[in-house]
């Protein structure tokens, strides 16, 4: 069953609980220079009328439908999990060339200096396959970040799938 990350900006306060869930799930070693796969942003955008728009965002890998990182990898580390639809990887053969990171419009794949390999958000693939929520979704107190099946997403009429941002930004190849 294919899964979709849905992000409702109206419910996010950039509290970063999702990041704590992610750091915990992936045992991210900050002291070694590694970074959390998920990042939050509390940007303040000045408006023409003198007001301010507060943009609270939580972002990780968008799990694009036609993920540009997959063809960018010269050794075939990245692929789509046919069951969940997440962009997953096996970095055994990774040569650390960073081509995936350059192909990604969001900077989701990260070069891990400690072992010279690429790592990225895999949507907590194993958790989802076993009927659990991704760690970030589980940590979100406000329901801003959810993960639903493709069928549930279509039935909800929502336009807030994370990878819908790709269409909004016009990043998809024509």
């Amino acid at each position: 069953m294919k899964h979709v990350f849905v992000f409702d900006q109206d419910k996010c306060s950039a509290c970063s609980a999702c990041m704590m869930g992610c750091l915990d799930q992936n045992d991210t070693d900050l002291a070694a220079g590694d970074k959390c796969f998920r990042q939050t942003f509390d940007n303040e955008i000045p408006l023409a009328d003198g007001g301010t728009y507060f943009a609270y965002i939580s972002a990780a890998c968008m799990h694009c439908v036609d993920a540009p990182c997959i063809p960018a990898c010269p050794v075939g580390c990245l692929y789509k999990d046919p069951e969940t639809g997440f962009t997953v990887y096996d970095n055994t053969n990774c040569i650390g060339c960073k081509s995936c990171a350059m192909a990604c419009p969001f900077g989701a794949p990260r070069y891990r200096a400690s072992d010279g390999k690429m790592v990225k958000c895999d949507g907590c693939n194993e958790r989802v396959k076993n009927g659990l929520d991704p760690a970030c979704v589980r940590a979100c107190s406000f329901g801003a970040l959810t993960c639903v099946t493709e069928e549930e997403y279509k039935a909800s009429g929502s336009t807030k799938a994370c990878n819908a941002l790709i269409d909004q930004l016009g990043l998809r190849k024509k």
Partner: protein
Amino acid sequence: MDLDDDLLKAGHEACVDWMIDGCGLTVADLKAHDKPIKVPAAVWPVQPGKLLKDGFKTPSGKFEFYSNAIAAIDPKYGLDPLPSYRDPLEDQNDPETKAAYPFYLCTGARLPHAIHSRTHETPWLRSLRPDPTIEVYTTDAERLGLQNGEPVELYSPYGKIRMKVKVTARSQPGVLMTLHGYTEANVNELIGRNHLDPYSGYPGFKGMRCNIRKVQEA
């Protein structure tokens, strides 16, 4: 310290008894047991309305908007029995202090991952905001030429600390907003020891006059 207070003179245990009064136990009861004991007054379900029935701990026994306890205090101390507004900066509003320290330092801000001084040393939590940060209102930052992430010094007549700037529209012009609990940037060092609540004597840790200036990176 030989303070003029009967309860304080009665000693530590008498003070603790006063604090836990109403739970049905005294320090002597707790000392008589070597294991935890149940609190007799903790009866579930709680019956609300006890104070309305038995009266409040006030001279009138009522919920007092006009405080008889404060009315009994010598008027020379200038305390109002009614809850009237008083400027929290009234002890530092003389023209010289106002000119030298034009900002109001608000230390009442909170971050969801920082609990007082406790969680600042937890690496994952600390990574969310690694540096002690002072939030400066957009127009103030523009006027002073302060950018996001720039090192600054906050100073008051009592001390100085270093923080990094975050420009925000979330506060008010003239307000510098930060949180307490950083070991290397302890906001309480900026607050004078005589900046006290005139009613309770409690230290006014949440607000102070201060000023901000750019510094070279240490």
